[in-house]
């Protein structure tokens, strides 16, 4: 990977460098000698040039930890990812007491389909909101009435009043365009940026109501993620890790409707090698969130994502299902679909990364 230094992993409790264990574990998995020890569970990734390594320990690990965006301990797993993986069928079967259990697979086709369906639902909801919001303005503009125009009919208006009128329309126009753009997912992000920046930002914000403000913030949030990613990764590879950490965390905190657009916009702004690195970092963040939550709630449960060759293996290895495909109801019940989805995503990202690393599918 051009210009990138080696990424190392260290143990957050004492700074011990874990790379050797991690690589060793991955090799075991790739050689088919699984299950392997969980070698990088809770490990913190960092670019080598940032680490002061001595006798197998990162001396400045506390400083690095302080600078590194990390998920908070005990974080409540958000449900934003629930829709992203279709577990509905499986969960229904469980509730109905059926003995036929289908382990949910995680193929791109299924993922895309579930996602597409959710997008449609989201779009319908957003369209409804937008219609309500603009209906008053539209009604005024769409009138059937027609009045004769008399260009000679003039009214005296103070310049201050004239400027105020222009500004009101300008702010409204910017807000509407921004709203439409933000709701337009990936392609809308650039439009949101353009339209919003063309307007006077301060006045535009001042004129927005709470809902408009929220949408504007979301648009900026997404845009910032993309811009930061592009700016630092393209022009300052040394900041790659830190920025990616921040990107991953930002994306995780986005609302449902912007999670995927942000993620894929980030992906689209990169070449394949960088996409793999981002996969790695995002996967790690998601992985750590799930992992820490699991450790806190159930110290005996091992959760492993890195190195799983497929999602079935992931489920089995972590005890969500047994080797016959029977689910561990307690784990499902305890951790919920959102958490499973996070694991699933991390496992899939890592799976793809490993496959790519070894020459593709």
């Amino acid at each position: 990977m051009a210009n990138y230094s080696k990424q190392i992993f260290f143990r957050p409790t004492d700074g011990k460098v874990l790379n050797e264990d991690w690589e060793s574990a991955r090799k075991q998995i790739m050689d088919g000698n699984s299950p392997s020890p969980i070698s990088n569970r809770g490990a913190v990734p960092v670019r080598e040039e940032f680490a002061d390594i001595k006798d197998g320990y990162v001396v400045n690990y506390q400083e690095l930890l302080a600078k590194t965006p990390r998920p908070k301990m005990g974080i409540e797993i958000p449900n934003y990812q629930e829709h992203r993986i279709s577990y509905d069928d499986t969960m229904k079967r469980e509730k109905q007491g059926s003995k036929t259990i289908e382990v949910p697979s995680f193929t791109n086709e299924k993922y895309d389909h579930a996602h597409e369906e959710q997008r449609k639902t989201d779009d319908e909801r957003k369209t409804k909101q937008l219609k309500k919001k603009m209906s008053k303005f539209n009604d005024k503009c769409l009138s059937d009435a027609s009045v004769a125009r008399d260009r000679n009919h003039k009214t005296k208006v103070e310049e201050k009043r004239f400027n105020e009128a222009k500004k009101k329309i300008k702010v409204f126009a910017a807000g509407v365009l921004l709203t439409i753009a933000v709701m337009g997912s990936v392609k809308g992000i650039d439009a949101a940026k353009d339209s919003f920046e063309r307007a006077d930002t301060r006045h535009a914000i001042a004129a927005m109501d709470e809902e408009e403000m929220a949408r504007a913030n979301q648009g900026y949030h997404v845009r910032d993620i993309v811009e930061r990613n592009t700016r630092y990764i393209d022009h300052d590879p040394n900041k790659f890790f830190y920025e990616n950490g921040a990107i991953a965390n930002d994306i995780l905190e986005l609302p449902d409707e912007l999670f995927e657009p942000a993620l894929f916009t980030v992906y689209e702004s990169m070449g394949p090698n960088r996409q793999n690195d981002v996969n790695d970092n995002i996967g790690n963040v998601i992985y750590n969130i799930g992992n820490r939550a699991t450790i806190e709630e159930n110290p005996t449960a091992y959760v492993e994502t890195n190195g799983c060759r497929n999602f079935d293996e992931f489920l089995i290895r972590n005890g969500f299902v047994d080797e016959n495909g029977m689910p561990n109801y307690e784990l499902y019940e305890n951790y919920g679909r959102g958490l499973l989805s996070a694991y699933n995503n991390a496992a899939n990202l890592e799976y793809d990364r490993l496959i790519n690393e070894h020459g593709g599918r």
Partner: protein
Amino acid sequence: MNLESVTLENGNEYVIVKEINDYLYLSNINNPDDFLVRKNVVIGDKEYIQGLSSKEEINEALKLYNESEE
């Protein structure tokens, strides 16, 4: 300053604060929060101020306005 004004069907008087292509951006002379977009239509030798025909046209008009204020 003297601006062209028109009394619309609701009885309110609006001044034309801007005209872009055939779109007219009107502001209520007594209430700057009341504004709308109409368009100029020429029929024979007379001009009329009419409503827009679609929401897409409204968005287009807003876009033009936004761009004009860069």
